[in-house]
């Protein structure tokens, strides 16, 4: 894949157009196959059916039906978001929502105010975002409350830019056009494959039409994946911050991203696939053929390469202009991405160790090829992070944090012993001990935790939780390894009533909570049991 966002954007645009043309040709091929099948069934000579006049009419009818389908599909797209996903306009009195409105304005500025884009918030704790355009030209970006609350400002900016790119590049319309072209043939073949009536004559042309239709679906998914890469590149062109988008994708991939009953057409326009299929994150030809989104790992890899390009420019600026002193051995230096997404450096190892903001998840480069998380760089990891752990008075365990890969510390929470990561705040606890913590409510909850928990309560009120839980149970994803036994952990909800995502090890009975998750769960359960409004227990 090319290196810079401009090259990626151009290359992907070319490929999308070529494949879109192939898709349109496939549509006519399916139509011709169905016509041939009809001729065979009615025992009519082919030349009657394939006369130029009849074929002309068929093409006109097919285009008319596709236009009709397109019109209906896009007429009320925005209302669909409001009605089916309960999306609401951002509340300017809410600080987080106001930030979203401001970011939307910033995106309008960076695109030269080419098109007015609105934004809405979907009240769910899931983490996802999608773009929609209706027939009248109204464009909206819908973002979930979960994503809005958990992303930093630059990350949110990158996600909004990605979705805005889908709107401005016409991806939203193209997706609906593709669906419209194949809507009628799919319905016809679906009806036929549903069962043959007595006396129905099967024609081999049906098989051909079915094969072509499946081929078109594969092409459509390929185009969808290319669009995601292109929208990532477009977002970087707007924000010039590839790492922010990479980190947002990483965060989303570790959380529940379903946004309710959304429909196939919209799935392709979400920043990550809301179905959370294990297939989406695997390699191989099957995943390549059947996924609407590229694997997040690959997307992050491409974005990291773009970041390295950005880093190279910084290195060129900071490099000494004088003649290097050949006699002096060069001390290794590092560049680090600070919490504000700015590259800092060069730092020798001693200076790097002294940085207060450095953590195992900080992106580091030695100025050579590629960038890596700090924990992956052998010359940094044992030196800096072990020293910091030793400064803590708490005992160090042999279990490693699945995110930061650093030893967990033994600590107490609600007077219950558990293991916690010093750096990211994730918690490892025996599953049997969770109920103990839930029964105790000695600590009060912050406004942020209460706000996140409240969103889940709303979710339960919408009675959508059951459906989502069923979906996730069917497609359990293993994203982390157990810190104790190293077996894959299963990502699941705590329970159908409390939709907080956790990672469970079914081998040694341990549960991993990402930062905030344990408190959120505790806040939800405590308040629901007490029957009090959530705000009453806030500090």
């Amino acid at each position, binding site marked *: 894949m090319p290196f810079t966002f401009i090259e990626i954007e151009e290359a992907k645009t070319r490929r999308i157009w070529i494949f879109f043309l192939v898709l349109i040709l496939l549509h006519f091929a399916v139509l011709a196959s169905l016509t041939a099948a009809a001729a065979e069934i009615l025992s009519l000579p082919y030349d009657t059916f394939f006369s130029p006049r009849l074929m002309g009419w068929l093409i006109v009818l097919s285009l008319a039906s596709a236009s009709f389908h397109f019109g209906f599909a896009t007429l009320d797209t925005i209302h669909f978001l409001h009605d089916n996903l309960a999306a609401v306009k951002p509340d300017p009195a809410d600080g987080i929502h106001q*930030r979203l409105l*401001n*970011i939307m304005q*910033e995106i309008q500025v960076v695109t*030269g105010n080419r098109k007015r884009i609105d934004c809405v918030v979907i009240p769910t704790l899931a983490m996802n975002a999608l773009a929609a355009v209706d027939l009248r030209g109204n464009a909206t970006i819908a973002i979930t409350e979960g994503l809005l609350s958990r992303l930093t400002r630059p990350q949110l900016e990158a996600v909004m830019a990605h979705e805005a790119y889908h709107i401005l590049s016409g991806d939203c319309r193209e997706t609906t056009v593709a669906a419209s072209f194949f809507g009628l043939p799919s319905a016809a073949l679906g009806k036929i494959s549903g069962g043959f009536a007595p006396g129905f004559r099967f024609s081999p042309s049906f098989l051909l039409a079915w094969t072509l239709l499946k081929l078109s679906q594969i092409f459509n998914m390929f185009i969808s994946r290319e669009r995601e890469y292109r929208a990532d590149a477009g977002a970087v062109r*707007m924000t010039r911050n590839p790492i922010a988008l990479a980190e947002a994708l990483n965060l989303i991939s570790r959380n529940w991203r379903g946004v309710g009953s959304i429909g196939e057409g919209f799935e392709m326009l979400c920043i990550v696939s809301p179905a959370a299929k294990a297939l989406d994150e695997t390699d191989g030809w099957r995943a390549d053929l059947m996924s609407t989104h590229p694997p997040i790992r690959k997307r992050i890899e491409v974005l990291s390469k773009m970041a390295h390009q950005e880093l190279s420019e910084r290195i060129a600026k900071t490099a000494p202009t004088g003649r290097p002193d050949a006699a002096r051995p060069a001390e290794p230096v590092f560049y680090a991405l600070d919490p504000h997404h700015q590259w800092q450096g060069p730092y020798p190892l001693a200076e790097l160790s002294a940085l207060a903001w450095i953590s195992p998840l900080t992106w580091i480069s030695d100025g050579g090829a590629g960038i890596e998380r700090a924990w992956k760089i052998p010359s940094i990891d044992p030196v800096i992070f072990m020293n910091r752990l030793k400064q803590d008075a708490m005992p160090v365990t042999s279990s490693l944090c699945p995110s930061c890969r650093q030893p967990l510390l033994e600590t107490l929470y609600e007077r219950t012993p558990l293991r916690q990561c010093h750096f990211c705040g994730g918690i490892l606890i025996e599953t049997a001990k969770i109920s103990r913590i839930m029964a105790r409510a000695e600590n009060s909850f912050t406004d942020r935790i209460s706000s996140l928990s409240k969103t889940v309560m709303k979710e339960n009120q919408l009675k959508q939780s059951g459906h989502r839980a069923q979906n996730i149970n069917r497609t359990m994803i293993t994203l982390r390894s157990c810190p104790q036994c190293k077996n894959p952990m299963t990502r699941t909800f705590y329970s159908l009533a409390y939709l907080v995502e956790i990672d469970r090890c079914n081998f040694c009975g341990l549960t991993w909570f990402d930062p905030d998750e344990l408190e959120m769960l505790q806040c939800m359960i405590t308040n629901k049991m007490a029957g009090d409004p959530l705000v009453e227990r806030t500090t």
Partner: protein
Amino acid sequence: MIEWIPLGLVVLGLLWIVIVYNGLVSLRNQVQNAWKQIDVQLKRRHDLIPNLVTTVKGAMEFEQDTLEKVISARAKAVSATGPHDKAVSENMLTQALGKLFAVVENYPQLKSNENIMQLQEELTSTENRIGFARQFYNDIVASYHIKQEVFPNNFVASIFKGFKKEEYYSAEDADRAVPQADLSLRKK
């Protein structure tokens, strides 16, 4: 039939000139609009500062010097005329605001004040918009230059005299040397 071919070619040629000319006019107007958008965002920042000063001055009685620097930097930025003066004075204003927010960090009652948080968010957003407006201006100037210079558009651009090269927005040397003020509310 053959006699129509030269006429057809002439019509096609004229059509092509019209398309290229209209494209150049459109881009020229976009460049002018993009430049004005930077001013719009700078004005937005100037308008926010009096509110900020009013909100913090009561609680920051021992930091009058910092506040005065912000007020005077704003006054200079508002009255600056040339592009160079504007760039220098806006840079000074950014620095003064950065210092003000660093001082606000020392006042817990201000840090948790809802109005301050809102103003800080508004100023962060305005800083970003200024940056994005400049970025968009440079992008559109690049497109305008490419449109003028590529073959055979360069003939059309040279026939009509109204199309000249526009200047890119570039950071002044002083701007490069000074670290960008951090007005962000990013979570750590």
